[in-house]
């Protein structure tokens, strides 16, 4: 098993909440993603064993949702919204700035495995644009100064 005891217990608890256990698939994927950082066949197999549905049904659902990375990412997954409200306030230049700062292109991971930079569609933070999500947290009303500080703090924490 890749999933730890805590994740397994959480998924089991979810199963009991639904009239049909298959409904627990998406929450289970989220729990697994939060623990592992990404999803793959081994994770699907673990979830399938807990929920007791065929593994293919887990994979079928998981591959539809782009929120879950399907391969390893850096310790910090930086997701920058490039949709219209953010773009009007400079999301494209924010992405270029991060590319320069982290010395990677979007879609790539830094050599020290700390940061992966990707662009995503609207995250529902339009009136606090531009914004990015790093792992589970939103960072809003971004400025150069703020971005510098956020990256610095994450580097120090790692």
């Amino acid at each position: 098993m890749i999933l730890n005891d805590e994740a397994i217990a959480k998924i089991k608890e979810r199963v009991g909440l639904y009239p049909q256990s298959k409904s627990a698939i998406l929450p289970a994927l989220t729990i697994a993603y939060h623990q592992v950082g990404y999803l793959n066949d081994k994770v699907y197999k673990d979830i399938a064993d807990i929920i007791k549905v065929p593994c293919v049904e887990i994979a079928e659902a998981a591959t539809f949702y782009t929120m879950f990375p399907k391969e390893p990412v850096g310790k910090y997954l930086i997701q920058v919204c490039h949709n219209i409200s953010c773009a009007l306030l400079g999301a494209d230049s924010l992405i270029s700035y991060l590319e320069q700062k982290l010395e990677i292109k979007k879609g790539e991971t830094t050599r020290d495995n700390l940061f992966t930079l990707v662009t995503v569609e609207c995250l529902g933070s339009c009136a606090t644009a531009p914004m990015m999500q790093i792992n589970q947290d939103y960072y809003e009303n971004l400025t150069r100064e703020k971005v510098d500080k956020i990256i610095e703090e994450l580097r120090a924490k790692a």
Partner: protein
Amino acid sequence: MFYSPVITNAAEAVKNEKLHLFRFVEDSEQVKIGTYEAHGGYQAWKKALTSMQPAQIVEEVKKSGLRGRGGAGFPTGMKWSFIPKDSPKPRYLICNADESEPGTCKDRVLMERDPHAVIEGMAIAAYAIGCHRMFIYIRGEFNHSIIRLETAVKEAYAHKHLGKNIYGTGYDLDMVVHSGGGAYICGEETALLNSLEGERGMSRIRPPFPAIEGLYACPTIVNNVETLASVPHIINRGADWYRTLGTEKSSGTKIFSLSGHVKRPGNYEVELGFNLKKLIYDPAYGGGILGDKKIKGVIPGGSSTPFLKADMLDVNLDYESLAQAGSMLGSGAVIVFHEDTCIVWVILKLIHFYRHESCGKCTPCREGTGWLEQIIGRIEAGGGKPGDIELIEDVCGNILGRTICPLGDAAVMPIQSAIKHWRDEWQFHIDNKKCMVKTNFEFR
């Protein structure tokens, strides 16, 4: 705990008793059940459950004129009345919190700052349709909203607003907070149902409508967060009071998410019928255009609604007025852009989104959005060909009204209106292989 720093007009809502959704959203204690109860919370749920019949509640909400705040604007009470009276199957209520229409960021504020209002509205709706297990489907990225709701639900159980034999009436009601996978399409109610069943989020062919065969093929009602958060106020103060808000045909208040090139982007609760120009320019709201530039256009109701040009902005924000102006109220997401914005660039951002979010079930949307992105992408990149505008119009015409769910229509309606309003700019882009106006937005 963290919550979004978004600007709201809560201070106005404290003074103006007509505004009810935002009254307590700047009070950091409001998330706690004690504070919510001290502010009159759960009184409506208690009143509904202990002194009203389900049919009475449906009637009251019908009479209030409340319409769906998620985008479609369907009358809420009427939707509830479609639940079959004689079905032996369990009924389900689902709160749609998959907020992902570009420009829309209002439900998140309600969930993060007033989660019990959402729960209370859901409970009343559940009782009105005879549901004993209700769900809130929250998009997976809203981790803080999910945690807020989970905490609030636990408190509501502890204070016996949820659970067994609520208020001694014998009525049982359970609530599940469900995290989604961040797909826009799952905001469409039939795709949401599939997603909640653990499937890929693909829309279903209707009929049967969810009220007849929804979740697990049982009668189901899906309502937006803001819609449900409005319900306790209707129960507390009555449909007649609610009807005094807004306009005759669009009653109540609505939260507008104002974003883009304005000085004060934010979430503003106003009565329906509020003037769009005022929302954009009044210092209490948008405060005018960034850099005092000239406004070029507005998307009034989320990225799926047709554009309004600068000379069309003296319009009231209600369902009828916006329809008359050739657009829609949608989710109430007002996206403003100024004169330095290339319309082809805007549309490319939008069509990229719809291509990415198309579930792929039906051909016109799956293929059409991809073709549109390619054609519009080449125009933006300076490779437009003569006849491309007509080609775009042709593809749009073959998507509109030909798809299972509204995503196809949502993708093409803004494009059609952008060509109608700014055709010369599209032509210039193709002829000169560059933008007519400079689009180069730096972040600060």
